[in-house]
Protein backbone atom coordinates (compact mmCIF):
# COMPACT_ATOMS: atom_id res chain seq x y z
CA UNK A 1 0.00 0.00 0.00
CA UNK A 2 2.93 2.31 -0.55
CA UNK A 3 0.92 4.43 -2.95
CA UNK A 4 -1.21 5.43 0.02
CA UNK A 5 1.74 7.04 1.70
CA UNK A 6 0.75 10.61 0.78
CA UNK A 7 -1.48 11.28 3.72
CA UNK A 8 -2.56 14.88 3.79
CA UNK A 9 -3.78 16.05 7.15
CA UNK A 10 -7.20 17.51 6.93
CA UNK A 11 -7.09 17.69 10.70
CA UNK A 12 -6.40 21.40 10.51
CA UNK A 13 -10.03 21.80 9.53
CA UNK A 14 -11.17 20.74 12.95
CA UNK A 15 -9.00 23.38 14.55
CA UNK A 16 -10.83 26.11 12.69
CA UNK A 17 -14.30 24.64 13.19
CA UNK A 18 -15.12 27.35 15.74
CA UNK A 19 -14.64 30.04 13.11
CA UNK A 20 -17.31 28.51 10.92
CA UNK A 21 -19.84 30.37 13.04
CA UNK A 22 -18.43 33.66 11.78
CA UNK A 23 -18.78 32.76 8.15
CA UNK A 24 -21.44 34.08 5.91
CA UNK A 25 -22.23 32.11 2.78
CA UNK A 26 -22.78 34.20 -0.31
CA UNK A 27 -26.25 34.24 -1.82
CA UNK A 28 -25.23 34.08 -5.47
CA UNK A 29 -22.97 31.18 -6.37
CA UNK A 30 -20.75 31.33 -9.41
CA UNK A 31 -21.75 28.90 -12.11
CA UNK A 32 -19.09 27.66 -14.49
CA UNK A 33 -19.77 27.03 -18.15
CA UNK A 34 -17.23 25.49 -20.50
CA UNK A 35 -17.13 27.40 -23.76
CA UNK A 36 -14.01 25.90 -25.30
CA UNK A 37 -11.91 22.78 -24.73
CA UNK A 38 -8.45 21.48 -25.61
CA UNK A 39 -7.82 19.74 -28.91
CA UNK A 40 -6.66 16.37 -27.54
CA UNK A 41 -8.52 15.56 -24.37
CA UNK A 42 -7.28 12.59 -22.35
CA UNK A 43 -10.03 9.96 -21.95
CA UNK A 44 -10.36 9.19 -18.22
CA UNK A 45 -12.73 6.89 -16.38
CA UNK A 46 -13.68 7.83 -12.81
CA UNK A 47 -15.58 4.86 -11.36
CA UNK A 48 -18.31 5.63 -8.82
CA UNK A 49 -16.64 5.62 -5.40
CA UNK A 50 -17.60 2.88 -2.98
CA UNK A 51 -18.77 3.34 0.61
CA UNK A 52 -21.56 5.55 1.92
CA UNK A 53 -23.59 6.33 -1.23
CA UNK A 54 -24.36 10.01 -0.43
CA UNK A 55 -20.74 10.84 0.44
CA UNK A 56 -19.38 8.87 -2.48
CA UNK A 57 -21.65 10.64 -4.92
CA UNK A 58 -20.34 14.05 -3.81
CA UNK A 59 -16.67 13.05 -4.12
CA UNK A 60 -17.12 11.30 -7.47
CA UNK A 61 -19.03 14.19 -9.02
CA UNK A 62 -16.52 16.78 -7.81
CA UNK A 63 -13.61 14.83 -9.34
CA UNK A 64 -15.41 14.37 -12.66
CA UNK A 65 -16.57 17.98 -12.85
CA UNK A 66 -13.10 19.34 -12.00
CA UNK A 67 -11.33 17.26 -14.64
CA UNK A 68 -13.97 17.95 -17.28
CA UNK A 69 -13.98 21.71 -16.58
CA UNK A 70 -10.21 21.88 -17.09
CA UNK A 71 -10.80 21.20 -20.79
CA UNK A 72 -7.98 18.62 -20.81
CA UNK A 73 -9.99 15.47 -20.09
CA UNK A 74 -12.91 13.58 -21.56
CA UNK A 75 -14.98 11.49 -19.14
CA UNK A 76 -15.38 7.85 -20.15
CA UNK A 77 -18.69 6.16 -19.30
CA UNK A 78 -18.40 3.98 -16.16
CA UNK A 79 -21.98 2.77 -15.87
CA UNK A 80 -22.47 -0.76 -14.59
CA UNK A 81 -19.11 -0.82 -12.85
CA UNK A 82 -18.77 -1.43 -9.11
CA UNK A 83 -15.22 -1.16 -7.86
CA UNK A 84 -13.01 0.56 -5.32
CA UNK A 85 -9.31 1.29 -4.95
CA UNK A 86 -8.90 -2.27 -3.67
CA UNK A 87 -10.38 -3.90 -6.78
CA UNK A 88 -8.02 -5.19 -9.45
CA UNK A 89 -9.20 -3.52 -12.67
CA UNK A 90 -9.99 -5.59 -15.76
CA UNK A 91 -7.80 -3.47 -18.02
CA UNK A 92 -9.05 -4.90 -21.30
CA UNK A 93 -12.61 -3.80 -20.41
CA UNK A 94 -11.41 -0.26 -19.79
CA UNK A 95 -9.39 -0.29 -22.97
CA UNK A 96 -12.56 -1.28 -24.85
CA UNK A 97 -14.41 1.63 -23.21
CA UNK A 98 -11.71 3.91 -24.59
CA UNK A 99 -10.09 4.99 -21.32
CA UNK A 100 -6.39 5.83 -21.09
CA UNK A 101 -6.58 6.17 -17.31
CA UNK A 102 -8.88 4.90 -14.60
CA UNK A 103 -9.47 6.08 -11.03
CA UNK A 104 -11.42 4.18 -8.39
CA UNK A 105 -11.86 4.78 -4.69
CA UNK A 106 -14.08 4.70 -1.64
CA UNK A 107 -15.18 6.62 1.42
CA UNK A 108 -14.66 4.65 4.60
CA UNK A 109 -14.27 4.96 8.35
CA UNK A 110 -10.97 6.21 9.69
CA UNK A 111 -9.46 6.32 13.18
CA UNK A 112 -11.28 8.46 15.71
CA UNK A 113 -14.68 8.34 14.04
CA UNK A 114 -13.59 10.36 11.02
CA UNK A 115 -13.93 9.42 7.42
CA UNK A 116 -11.25 8.67 4.92
CA UNK A 117 -11.38 9.14 1.15
CA UNK A 118 -9.07 6.70 -0.64
CA UNK A 119 -8.36 6.32 -4.30
CA UNK A 120 -5.99 4.73 -6.77
CA UNK A 121 -5.15 5.84 -10.29
CA UNK A 122 -4.31 3.31 -13.02
CA UNK A 123 -2.65 3.60 -16.40
CA UNK A 124 -4.91 1.47 -18.61
CA UNK A 125 -2.46 1.17 -21.49
CA UNK A 126 0.49 0.12 -19.33
CA UNK A 127 -1.79 -1.79 -16.96
CA UNK A 128 -0.03 -0.25 -13.99
CA UNK A 129 -0.73 1.84 -10.90
CA UNK A 130 0.03 5.56 -11.38
CA UNK A 131 -0.61 6.64 -7.82
CA UNK A 132 -3.08 6.95 -5.00
CA UNK A 133 -3.78 8.65 -1.70
CA UNK A 134 -5.93 8.63 1.38
CA UNK A 135 -7.40 11.79 2.87
CA UNK A 136 -8.94 12.19 6.27
CA UNK A 137 -12.17 14.03 5.65
CA UNK A 138 -15.62 14.71 7.10
CA UNK A 139 -19.13 15.25 5.77
CA UNK A 140 -18.42 19.00 5.60
CA UNK A 141 -15.20 18.65 3.65
CA UNK A 142 -16.08 16.01 1.07
CA UNK A 143 -15.91 18.50 -1.79
CA UNK A 144 -12.43 19.54 -0.66
CA UNK A 145 -11.35 15.89 -0.63
CA UNK A 146 -12.70 15.55 -4.18
CA UNK A 147 -10.68 18.60 -5.29
CA UNK A 148 -7.52 17.13 -3.71
CA UNK A 149 -8.01 13.84 -5.54
CA UNK A 150 -8.70 15.67 -8.82
CA UNK A 151 -5.49 17.67 -8.30
CA UNK A 152 -3.47 14.47 -7.97
CA UNK A 153 -5.08 12.86 -11.04
CA UNK A 154 -4.49 16.07 -13.01
CA UNK A 155 -0.84 16.22 -11.99
CA UNK A 156 -0.17 12.52 -12.67
CA UNK A 157 -1.69 12.76 -16.15
CA UNK A 158 -0.48 16.20 -17.30
CA UNK A 159 2.77 16.63 -15.37
CA UNK A 160 1.75 19.97 -13.89
CA UNK A 161 0.02 20.70 -10.60
CA UNK A 162 -3.76 21.02 -10.56
CA UNK A 163 -5.53 24.11 -9.22
CA UNK A 164 -8.84 22.57 -8.17
CA UNK A 165 -8.07 23.13 -4.48
CA UNK A 166 -7.31 26.81 -4.93
CA UNK A 167 -9.64 29.74 -4.33
CA UNK A 168 -10.59 32.86 -6.22
CA UNK A 169 -11.55 36.30 -4.90
CA UNK A 170 -13.83 38.61 -6.83
CA UNK A 171 -16.15 41.57 -6.30
CA UNK A 172 -19.91 41.37 -6.78
CA UNK A 173 -21.92 44.49 -7.31
CA UNK A 174 -25.12 43.45 -5.58
CA UNK A 175 -27.02 46.75 -5.82
CA UNK A 176 -26.60 50.49 -6.40
CA UNK A 177 -24.85 50.84 -3.04
CA UNK A 178 -23.78 47.30 -2.21
CA UNK A 179 -20.42 45.82 -3.07
CA UNK A 180 -19.29 42.43 -1.79
CA UNK A 181 -15.86 40.84 -1.79
CA UNK A 182 -16.32 37.09 -2.24
CA UNK A 183 -13.96 34.15 -1.79
CA UNK A 184 -14.99 30.95 -3.59
CA UNK A 185 -13.46 27.61 -4.50
CA UNK A 186 -11.97 27.51 -8.00
CA UNK A 187 -15.13 25.75 -9.21
CA UNK A 188 -17.25 28.68 -8.00
CA UNK A 189 -18.76 26.72 -5.11
CA UNK A 190 -18.58 27.46 -1.41
CA UNK A 191 -18.59 31.24 -1.95
CA UNK A 192 -18.16 33.25 1.23
CA UNK A 193 -18.40 36.98 1.77
CA UNK A 194 -15.30 38.64 3.19
CA UNK A 195 -16.46 42.25 3.01
CA UNK A 196 -19.72 44.15 2.42
CA UNK A 197 -19.55 47.86 1.62
CA UNK A 198 -21.75 50.64 0.28
CA UNK A 199 -18.80 51.88 -1.76
CA UNK A 200 -16.71 50.22 -4.49
CA UNK A 201 -14.00 47.64 -3.77
CA UNK A 202 -11.34 47.08 -6.46
CA UNK A 203 -7.96 45.43 -7.09
CA UNK A 204 -7.99 42.49 -4.66
CA UNK A 205 -4.56 40.84 -4.43
CA UNK A 206 -3.72 37.62 -2.51
CA UNK A 207 -0.81 37.46 -0.13
CA UNK A 208 1.54 34.69 -1.30
CA UNK A 209 0.50 32.46 1.65
CA UNK A 210 -3.21 32.85 0.82
CA UNK A 211 -4.15 34.14 4.28
CA UNK A 212 -4.71 37.81 3.42
CA UNK A 213 -6.09 39.98 0.67
CA UNK A 214 -4.92 43.49 -0.10
CA UNK A 215 -7.51 45.66 -1.88
CA UNK A 216 -8.69 49.20 -2.51
CA UNK A 217 -11.86 50.28 -0.72
CA UNK A 218 -13.71 53.56 -1.30
CA UNK A 219 -15.63 53.36 1.99
CA UNK A 220 -14.02 56.65 3.13
CA UNK A 221 -15.04 58.46 -0.09
CA UNK A 222 -11.53 58.02 -1.48
CA UNK A 223 -9.37 55.07 -2.42
CA UNK A 224 -7.56 53.55 0.58
CA UNK A 225 -5.49 50.33 0.57
CA UNK A 226 -6.32 47.69 3.18
CA UNK A 227 -4.85 44.31 4.05
CA UNK A 228 -7.59 41.97 5.24
CA UNK A 229 -6.89 38.74 7.16
CA UNK A 230 -9.52 36.34 5.88
CA UNK A 231 -9.86 34.00 8.88
CA UNK A 232 -10.30 36.75 11.48
CA UNK A 233 -11.75 39.57 9.39
CA UNK A 234 -9.10 41.89 10.86
CA UNK A 235 -8.27 44.76 8.53
CA UNK A 236 -5.18 46.95 8.53
CA UNK A 237 -4.95 50.23 6.61
CA UNK A 238 -1.64 50.01 4.76
CA UNK A 239 -1.96 53.20 2.71
CA UNK A 240 -4.23 56.12 3.54
CA UNK A 241 -2.13 59.11 2.58
CA UNK A 242 -3.48 62.43 1.39
CA UNK A 243 -4.82 61.87 -2.12
CA UNK A 244 -5.45 58.45 -3.68
CA UNK A 245 -4.03 55.09 -2.58
CA UNK A 246 -4.43 52.15 -4.93
CA UNK A 247 -3.17 49.18 -6.99
CA UNK A 248 -1.67 46.96 -4.26
CA UNK A 249 0.64 44.11 -5.41
CA UNK A 250 2.45 41.72 -3.05
CA UNK A 251 6.14 41.03 -3.29
CA UNK A 252 6.72 37.26 -3.73
CA UNK A 253 8.09 36.97 -0.17
CA UNK A 254 4.90 38.52 1.24
CA UNK A 255 6.81 41.14 3.22
CA UNK A 256 6.11 44.18 1.09
CA UNK A 257 3.49 45.67 -1.19
CA UNK A 258 3.89 47.87 -4.21
CA UNK A 259 1.16 50.53 -4.09
CA UNK A 260 0.29 53.65 -6.06
CA UNK A 261 0.10 56.88 -4.07
CA UNK A 262 -0.75 60.40 -5.22
CA UNK A 263 0.51 62.09 -2.06
CA UNK A 264 3.41 63.73 -3.91
CA UNK A 265 1.21 64.67 -6.89
CA UNK A 266 0.42 62.43 -9.86
CA UNK A 267 0.27 58.66 -9.46
CA UNK A 268 3.59 57.16 -8.34
CA UNK A 269 4.61 53.63 -7.41
CA UNK A 270 5.90 53.08 -3.87
CA UNK A 271 7.00 50.07 -1.85
CA UNK A 272 5.54 49.78 1.65
CA UNK A 273 5.92 47.11 4.31
CA UNK A 274 2.86 44.86 4.75
CA UNK A 275 1.96 46.82 7.92
CA UNK A 276 1.99 50.10 5.96
CA UNK A 277 5.31 51.41 7.31
CA UNK A 278 8.41 52.50 5.43
CA UNK A 279 6.96 53.95 2.19
CA UNK A 280 9.72 54.19 -0.41
CA UNK A 281 9.13 55.84 -3.79
CA UNK A 282 10.14 53.92 -6.94
CA UNK A 283 8.99 56.11 -9.87
CA UNK A 284 10.07 59.72 -10.14
CA UNK A 285 8.75 61.24 -13.38
CA UNK A 286 5.53 63.27 -13.71
CA UNK A 287 3.64 60.78 -15.87
CA UNK A 288 1.01 58.30 -14.72
CA UNK A 289 2.66 55.23 -13.16
CA UNK A 290 0.33 52.52 -11.92
CA UNK A 291 -0.64 48.82 -11.87
CA UNK A 292 2.63 47.48 -10.41
CA UNK A 293 3.17 43.70 -10.58
CA UNK A 294 6.25 41.84 -9.30
CA UNK A 295 8.17 39.31 -11.36
CA UNK A 296 8.11 35.93 -9.55
CA UNK A 297 11.79 36.29 -8.58
CA UNK A 298 11.00 39.60 -6.89
CA UNK A 299 13.71 41.40 -8.87
CA UNK A 300 11.51 43.49 -11.18
CA UNK A 301 8.28 45.45 -11.09
CA UNK A 302 6.18 45.65 -14.25
CA UNK A 303 3.81 48.62 -14.46
CA UNK A 304 1.68 50.83 -16.71
CA UNK A 305 2.80 54.36 -17.59
CA UNK A 306 1.81 57.05 -20.07
CA UNK A 307 5.35 58.54 -20.01
CA UNK A 308 5.70 57.84 -23.75
CA UNK A 309 2.42 59.57 -24.67
CA UNK A 310 0.09 56.57 -24.47
CA UNK A 311 -0.43 53.95 -21.77
CA UNK A 312 2.20 51.21 -22.21
CA UNK A 313 3.81 48.55 -20.06
CA UNK A 314 7.29 49.08 -18.61
CA UNK A 315 9.59 47.17 -16.32
CA UNK A 316 11.96 48.51 -13.66
CA UNK A 317 14.25 46.95 -11.10
CA UNK A 318 12.76 46.58 -7.63
CA UNK A 319 14.92 49.53 -6.51
CA UNK A 320 13.30 51.76 -9.16
CA UNK A 321 16.10 51.98 -11.72
CA UNK A 322 16.78 50.42 -15.11
CA UNK A 323 13.40 51.22 -16.71
CA UNK A 324 12.64 49.39 -19.96
CA UNK A 325 9.59 49.62 -22.17
CA UNK A 326 7.96 46.21 -22.66
CA UNK A 327 4.88 46.77 -24.89
CA UNK A 328 5.10 48.43 -28.30
CA UNK A 329 2.20 47.37 -30.53
CA UNK A 330 -0.84 49.68 -30.38
CA UNK A 331 -1.74 52.72 -28.29
CA UNK A 332 -3.24 51.16 -25.15
CA UNK A 333 -1.52 48.30 -23.29
CA UNK A 334 -2.29 48.04 -19.58
CA UNK A 335 -2.65 45.76 -16.53
CA UNK A 336 0.53 43.61 -16.76
CA UNK A 337 0.55 40.30 -14.83
CA UNK A 338 3.58 38.01 -14.96
CA UNK A 339 3.05 34.23 -15.11
CA UNK A 340 4.27 32.12 -12.15
CA UNK A 341 7.20 30.80 -14.25
CA UNK A 342 8.20 34.35 -15.23
CA UNK A 343 8.08 33.58 -18.95
CA UNK A 344 4.79 35.18 -20.03
CA UNK A 345 2.94 38.39 -19.38
CA UNK A 346 -0.85 38.64 -19.54
CA UNK A 347 -2.14 42.15 -20.20
CA UNK A 348 -5.05 44.05 -21.73
CA UNK A 349 -4.54 45.53 -25.18
CA UNK A 350 -6.90 47.78 -27.12
CA UNK A 351 -7.41 46.22 -30.56
CA UNK A 352 -9.98 47.46 -33.09
CA UNK A 353 -11.64 49.50 -30.33
CA UNK A 354 -12.02 46.48 -28.00
CA UNK A 355 -10.08 45.80 -24.80
CA UNK A 356 -8.75 42.25 -25.16
CA UNK A 357 -6.77 39.79 -23.10
CA UNK A 358 -3.34 39.32 -24.67
CA UNK A 359 -0.27 37.33 -23.75
CA UNK A 360 3.34 38.20 -24.48
CA UNK A 361 6.16 35.68 -24.50
CA UNK A 362 8.72 37.78 -22.63
CA UNK A 363 11.78 36.25 -24.29
CA UNK A 364 10.62 36.72 -27.90
CA UNK A 365 8.22 39.67 -27.24
CA UNK A 366 5.70 37.77 -29.38
CA UNK A 367 2.12 38.85 -28.61
CA UNK A 368 -1.01 36.73 -28.96
CA UNK A 369 -4.49 38.23 -28.55
CA UNK A 370 -6.60 35.57 -26.79
CA UNK A 371 -10.16 36.93 -27.01
CA UNK A 372 -12.36 38.90 -29.38
CA UNK A 373 -14.31 40.62 -26.61
CA UNK A 374 -14.68 44.34 -25.98
CA UNK A 375 -14.32 44.83 -22.25
CA UNK A 376 -11.68 42.49 -20.84
CA UNK A 377 -10.14 43.69 -17.58
CA UNK A 378 -8.00 42.66 -14.62
CA UNK A 379 -6.15 39.48 -15.72
CA UNK A 380 -4.96 37.05 -13.03
CA UNK A 381 -2.95 33.84 -13.55
CA UNK A 382 -3.92 30.47 -12.11
CA UNK A 383 -1.11 29.40 -9.77
CA UNK A 384 0.00 26.69 -12.22
CA UNK A 385 0.22 29.30 -14.98
CA UNK A 386 -2.02 27.44 -17.41
CA UNK A 387 -5.08 29.72 -17.28
CA UNK A 388 -5.72 33.45 -17.04
CA UNK A 389 -8.88 34.63 -15.34
CA UNK A 390 -10.30 37.97 -16.48
CA UNK A 391 -13.36 40.13 -15.95
CA UNK A 392 -15.36 40.73 -19.10
CA UNK A 393 -18.88 41.63 -20.12
CA UNK A 394 -21.63 39.42 -21.47
CA UNK A 395 -25.03 40.88 -22.33
CA UNK A 396 -24.31 44.04 -20.32
CA UNK A 397 -23.38 42.06 -17.17
CA UNK A 398 -19.99 41.55 -15.65
CA UNK A 399 -18.80 37.93 -15.81
CA UNK A 400 -15.48 36.20 -15.27
CA UNK A 401 -13.79 34.20 -17.98
CA UNK A 402 -10.90 31.76 -17.66
CA UNK A 403 -8.80 31.36 -20.80
CA UNK A 404 -5.90 28.96 -21.34
CA UNK A 405 -2.58 30.46 -22.44
CA UNK A 406 -3.05 28.93 -25.91
CA UNK A 407 -6.55 30.47 -26.09
CA UNK A 408 -8.26 27.10 -26.74
CA UNK A 409 -9.87 26.40 -23.39
CA UNK A 410 -12.45 28.88 -22.20
CA UNK A 411 -14.72 28.84 -19.17
CA UNK A 412 -17.28 31.42 -18.18
CA UNK A 413 -18.02 32.05 -14.50
CA UNK A 414 -21.12 34.08 -13.75
CA UNK A 415 -23.70 34.71 -11.07
CA UNK A 416 -27.33 34.62 -12.25
CA UNK A 417 -28.47 38.24 -12.69
CA UNK A 418 -25.32 39.40 -10.83
CA UNK A 419 -22.47 41.68 -11.79
CA UNK A 420 -19.07 40.07 -11.12
CA UNK A 421 -15.70 41.79 -11.55
CA UNK A 422 -12.15 42.18 -10.24
CA UNK A 423 -11.02 38.53 -10.05
CA UNK A 424 -7.88 37.44 -8.22
CA UNK A 425 -6.80 33.79 -8.33
CA UNK A 426 -5.32 32.66 -5.04
CA UNK A 427 -2.08 30.70 -4.53
CA UNK A 428 -1.72 26.93 -4.18
CA UNK A 429 -3.38 25.62 -1.05
CA UNK A 430 -0.41 24.25 0.84
Amino acid at each position, binding site marked *: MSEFSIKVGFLRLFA*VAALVLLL*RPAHGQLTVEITGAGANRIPVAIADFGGDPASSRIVTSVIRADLERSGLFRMVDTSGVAMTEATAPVFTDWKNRGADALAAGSIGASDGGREEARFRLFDVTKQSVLGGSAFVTSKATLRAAGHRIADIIYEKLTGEPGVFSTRVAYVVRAGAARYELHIADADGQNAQVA*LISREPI*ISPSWSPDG*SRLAYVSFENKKPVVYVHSLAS*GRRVVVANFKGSNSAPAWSPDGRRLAVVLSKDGGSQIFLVNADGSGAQRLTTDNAIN*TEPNFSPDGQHVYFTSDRGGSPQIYRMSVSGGDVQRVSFEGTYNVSPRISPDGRSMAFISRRDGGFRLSVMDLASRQVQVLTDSNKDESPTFSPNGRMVLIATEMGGRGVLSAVSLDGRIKQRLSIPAGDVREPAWGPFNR
Partner: protein
Amino acid sequence: MKRVVIPAALALLVAACSSTPEGGDQSGAPVESRAGGPSVATVTTGGVDGGRLPAVLTDPKSILSKRSVYFDYDSYEVKAEYKDLVTAHAKFLTENRQFRMLIQGNTDERGSREYNLALGQKRADAIKKMMALLGAREDQLEAVSLGEEKPKNEGHGEAAWAENRRGDMLYSGEF
Protein backbone atom coordinates in the same frame (compact mmCIF):
# COMPACT_ATOMS: atom_id res chain seq x y z
CA MET B 1 -24.51 63.28 -3.00
CA LYS B 2 -24.63 61.55 0.33
CA ARG B 3 -23.67 63.87 3.16
CA VAL B 4 -21.27 62.88 5.83
CA VAL B 5 -19.43 64.76 8.55
CA ILE B 6 -16.27 62.84 8.70
CA PRO B 7 -12.75 64.20 8.56
CA ALA B 8 -10.15 61.70 7.46
CA ALA B 9 -9.01 60.76 10.97
CA LEU B 10 -12.56 60.07 12.08
CA ALA B 11 -13.21 58.12 8.92
CA LEU B 12 -10.34 55.86 9.82
CA LEU B 13 -11.78 55.40 13.27
CA VAL B 14 -15.11 54.38 11.76
CA ALA B 15 -13.30 51.95 9.51
CA ALA B 16 -11.45 50.51 12.47
CA CYS B 17 -14.66 50.10 14.49
CA SER B 18 -16.40 48.47 11.59
CA SER B 19 -13.83 45.75 11.29
CA THR B 20 -15.46 43.65 13.98
CA PRO B 21 -16.86 40.66 12.15
CA GLU B 22 -20.61 40.32 12.34
CA GLY B 23 -20.95 36.92 13.88
CA GLY B 24 -24.10 37.09 15.99
CA ASP B 25 -26.62 35.89 13.46
CA GLN B 26 -24.41 33.34 11.82
CA SER B 27 -24.99 30.35 14.06
CA GLY B 28 -25.66 27.25 12.07
CA ALA B 29 -24.95 28.91 8.76
CA PRO B 30 -24.55 26.09 6.24
CA VAL B 31 -21.00 26.90 5.33
CA GLU B 32 -18.77 24.22 4.02
CA SER B 33 -15.32 24.76 5.36
CA ARG B 34 -12.30 24.37 3.14
CA ALA B 35 -9.65 21.79 3.50
CA GLY B 36 -6.32 23.28 4.42
CA GLY B 37 -7.39 26.84 3.66
CA PRO B 38 -8.46 29.45 6.19
CA SER B 39 -12.14 30.21 6.60
CA VAL B 40 -13.48 33.65 5.87
CA ALA B 41 -15.17 36.05 8.30
CA THR B 42 -17.61 38.66 7.02
CA VAL B 43 -16.97 42.36 7.65
CA THR B 44 -19.44 45.18 7.03
CA THR B 45 -18.04 48.69 6.53
CA GLY B 46 -19.39 51.56 8.62
CA GLY B 47 -22.05 54.05 7.52
CA VAL B 48 -21.78 57.78 8.16
CA ASP B 49 -24.15 60.67 8.95
CA GLY B 50 -24.91 64.01 7.28
CA GLY B 51 -24.15 67.63 8.14
CA ARG B 52 -25.10 71.22 7.20
CA LEU B 53 -23.50 73.76 4.86
CA PRO B 54 -23.97 77.56 4.56
CA ALA B 55 -26.70 78.56 2.09
CA VAL B 56 -24.22 80.26 -0.25
CA LEU B 57 -22.82 76.84 -1.12
CA THR B 58 -26.18 75.20 -1.75
CA ASP B 59 -28.47 77.99 -3.07
CA PRO B 60 -29.13 77.10 -6.74
CA LYS B 61 -28.79 80.83 -7.62
CA SER B 62 -25.24 80.92 -6.26
CA ILE B 63 -22.41 79.92 -8.59
CA LEU B 64 -20.94 78.06 -5.61
CA SER B 65 -23.78 75.54 -5.79
CA LYS B 66 -22.19 74.31 -9.01
CA ARG B 67 -19.49 71.80 -8.23
CA SER B 68 -18.55 70.01 -11.42
CA VAL B 69 -15.85 70.57 -14.04
CA TYR B 70 -16.14 68.45 -17.21
CA PHE B 71 -13.20 67.19 -19.25
CA ASP B 72 -12.58 66.13 -22.84
CA TYR B 73 -11.73 62.52 -23.65
CA ASP B 74 -8.29 61.50 -22.39
CA SER B 75 -7.69 65.09 -21.23
CA TYR B 76 -7.01 66.59 -17.83
CA GLU B 77 -6.96 70.23 -18.89
CA VAL B 78 -9.47 72.52 -17.09
CA LYS B 79 -11.32 74.20 -19.97
CA ALA B 80 -11.74 78.01 -20.11
CA GLU B 81 -15.49 77.79 -19.54
CA TYR B 82 -14.86 76.52 -15.97
CA LYS B 83 -12.44 79.30 -14.97
CA ASP B 84 -15.13 81.46 -13.30
CA LEU B 85 -16.46 78.47 -11.35
CA VAL B 86 -13.06 77.43 -10.03
CA THR B 87 -12.20 81.05 -9.25
CA ALA B 88 -15.41 81.49 -7.22
CA HIS B 89 -14.64 78.39 -5.13
CA ALA B 90 -11.04 79.46 -4.64
CA LYS B 91 -12.32 82.82 -3.37
CA PHE B 92 -14.72 81.12 -0.97
CA LEU B 93 -11.91 78.97 0.42
CA THR B 94 -9.65 82.02 0.73
CA GLU B 95 -12.32 83.88 2.73
CA ASN B 96 -13.36 80.84 4.76
CA ARG B 97 -10.16 79.24 5.95
CA GLN B 98 -12.03 76.83 8.23
CA PHE B 99 -13.42 75.03 5.17
CA ARG B 100 -11.72 72.14 3.49
CA MET B 101 -12.40 70.85 -0.01
CA LEU B 102 -12.21 67.34 -1.43
CA ILE B 103 -11.77 67.28 -5.20
CA GLN B 104 -12.85 63.98 -6.74
CA GLY B 105 -11.69 63.13 -10.26
CA ASN B 106 -13.82 60.76 -12.38
CA THR B 107 -13.46 59.03 -15.74
CA ASP B 108 -15.64 57.17 -18.19
CA GLU B 109 -15.79 53.38 -18.05
CA ARG B 110 -13.47 52.55 -20.92
CA GLY B 111 -10.22 50.78 -20.11
CA SER B 112 -8.46 49.58 -16.99
CA ARG B 113 -9.95 50.48 -13.59
CA GLU B 114 -6.58 51.29 -12.04
CA TYR B 115 -5.41 53.28 -15.06
CA ASN B 116 -8.67 55.22 -14.93
CA LEU B 117 -8.07 55.85 -11.24
CA ALA B 118 -4.76 57.48 -12.22
CA LEU B 119 -6.45 59.49 -15.00
CA GLY B 120 -9.10 60.76 -12.56
CA GLN B 121 -6.29 61.75 -10.21
CA LYS B 122 -4.75 63.87 -12.98
CA ARG B 123 -8.10 65.68 -13.38
CA ALA B 124 -8.48 66.27 -9.63
CA ASP B 125 -4.86 67.43 -9.44
CA ALA B 126 -5.46 69.93 -12.29
CA ILE B 127 -8.39 71.53 -10.44
CA LYS B 128 -6.46 71.54 -7.18
CA LYS B 129 -3.45 73.22 -8.77
CA MET B 130 -5.66 75.97 -10.22
CA MET B 131 -7.39 76.44 -6.87
CA ALA B 132 -4.03 76.78 -5.11
CA LEU B 133 -2.78 79.34 -7.64
CA LEU B 134 -5.93 81.37 -6.91
CA GLY B 135 -5.24 81.53 -3.17
CA ALA B 136 -6.66 78.39 -1.56
CA ARG B 137 -4.20 76.88 0.92
CA GLU B 138 -2.66 73.46 0.42
CA ASP B 139 -4.03 72.26 3.76
CA GLN B 140 -7.58 73.14 2.64
CA LEU B 141 -7.36 70.96 -0.45
CA GLU B 142 -7.27 67.24 -1.11
CA ALA B 143 -7.39 65.82 -4.63
CA VAL B 144 -8.50 62.19 -4.92
CA SER B 145 -9.78 59.96 -7.68
CA LEU B 146 -12.82 57.74 -7.95
CA GLY B 147 -11.74 56.57 -11.41
CA GLU B 148 -14.61 54.89 -13.23
CA GLU B 149 -16.12 53.53 -10.00
CA LYS B 150 -18.79 56.14 -9.28
CA PRO B 151 -20.35 57.12 -12.63
CA LYS B 152 -22.93 59.91 -12.46
CA ASN B 153 -24.53 58.40 -15.55
CA GLU B 154 -24.50 54.60 -15.68
CA GLY B 155 -25.19 54.55 -19.44
CA HIS B 156 -22.68 53.32 -22.00
CA GLY B 157 -22.73 55.85 -24.88
CA GLU B 158 -20.77 59.07 -25.52
CA ALA B 159 -23.41 61.19 -23.71
CA ALA B 160 -22.99 59.15 -20.53
CA TRP B 161 -19.21 59.07 -20.87
CA ALA B 162 -19.06 62.89 -21.25
CA GLU B 163 -21.00 63.28 -18.00
CA ASN B 164 -18.61 60.95 -16.23
CA ARG B 165 -15.36 62.67 -17.31
CA ARG B 166 -15.63 65.05 -14.42
CA GLY B 167 -14.10 66.63 -11.37
CA ASP B 168 -16.38 67.33 -8.36
CA MET B 169 -15.64 69.86 -5.64
CA LEU B 170 -16.99 68.88 -2.20
CA TYR B 171 -16.78 70.82 1.06
CA SER B 172 -16.20 69.52 4.58
CA GLY B 173 -19.55 68.03 5.51
CA GLU B 174 -20.18 66.70 2.04
CA PHE B 175 -17.65 63.92 1.97
